[in-house]
């Protein structure tokens, strides 16, 4: 019974049909099968946050979701939100503030940050820290990341007012 299972899902707006083994997690499915390698695989047990993607609008750990569980789901990865321009301002704030060095954690940081900014228009630094508490960065420290998110939040709030 450890045979492949047929799944059908939407990934970054495109319909994807595939046959996958049950043990394949969503992160590996995105990377190996769809070649969407922006989603990174760090710890593989839900601690580091590098594999954060959106499933049905909510951020999740794609290493803690089986590809078969994503059947009928809508998945958005860093490639999707990047190509659509949804996070262009956030990306440029990260770049300007040097909020990354090696960049391994950055896709997950951006997905988590955008999730916060969608829910809360003007989060304070404590709220930003809390929302990103599940995302590890092993090179920059976190100050610049928080600066970049705070700057983006303010700029978006100003654009709306």
């Amino acid at each position: 019974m450890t045979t492949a299972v047929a799944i059908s899902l939407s990934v970054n707006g495109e319909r994807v049909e595939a046959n996958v083994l049950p043990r394949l997690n969503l992160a590996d499915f995105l990377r190996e099968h769809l070649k969407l390698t922006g989603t990174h695989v760090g710890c593989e047990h839900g601690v580091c946050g590098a594999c954060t993607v959106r499933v049905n609008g909510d951020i999740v750990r794609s290493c803690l979701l089986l590809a078969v569980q994503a059947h009928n789901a809508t998945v958005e990865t860093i490639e999707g939100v990047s190509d659509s321009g949804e996070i262009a301002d956030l990306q440029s704030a990260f770049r300007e503030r040097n909020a990354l060095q090696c960049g391994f954690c950055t896709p997950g940081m951006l997905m988590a940050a955008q999730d916060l900014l969608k829910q809360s228009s003007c989060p304070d630094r404590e709220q930003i820290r809390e929302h990103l508490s599940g995302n590890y960065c092993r090179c920059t420290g976190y100050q610049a990341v928080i600066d970049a998110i705070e700057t983006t939040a303010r700029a978006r709030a100003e654009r709306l007012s």
Partner: protein
Amino acid sequence: MKASAFAYARATSVANALELLTVHGERAKVLSGGQSLLPAMNLRLIAPELIIDIGDLAELRGVVVKGGVLTIGALTRHVDLLKSPEIAAHASLLTDAVAHIAHPAIRNRGTIGGSLAHADPASELPACMLTLGATIIVHGPGRERRIAASEFFAGIYETALRPQELLVAVELPVSPKNSTYFFHEFARRHGDYAIVGLAAQAVVNDGRFADLRLGFFAVGDRPLLAGSAGKLVNVTITSAVFSEACSALDEELDPLEDQQATPAMRRHLAKVLLARCVSSLLDRPDLHAGASA
């Protein structure tokens, strides 16, 4: 690491999940949110032959209030609890506690049923169930069992749930209108596993506890509803009364040693939490004095 190979079945109904469990029993594991099960499988701590995915069973999701009872479906996610107006109104301790469970991306998948069935002694919800006097509803072949939370947790990752049974819901009595609560946990970083935590609910009349329920977690192999709370009920709390309660609490604790803390440190932190709890609920800053972590 990656999980070892397993077979997969997507349950189409509770009855179907029970049929699969009846056939496969201990060889199978039920998958709800997967936020504890999949890490354990990825780390190869467990290697079930069959995963029964109950994620599509919408009937197990949601919060209902009726006749003084809150019923929470097993598949209700942590984020649903956090945002539920019913939970905020009738079990506000839970709203506060859930914010301490892991991180947003985990709370978007993790479920109450999964957390209770997993029974990690450091997790928040099992202790809350003891404090709130929950009943855990379990379906098995041909019958339903209603298990008091105080009878449900049996050890590290051990519960009264049998291999053929499925946890379907929990019932909580609506918190009394005049009740107050306290929740705090010590953790290295927000969202990490608690080093020691306390989920308390109380009724306070004229500066005294008319009722006090203290659910400690990460103080032993299972959550603890502290009997020593009784020492603080219907009395005026002096420092002598309080230190007697602390000694009684110390007797009840059986903390484990791990990478985070020694048993002695956990005993100390449990008493610090008790002091903060009592001082906060009674608005008695004097009882907090000296209770430093």
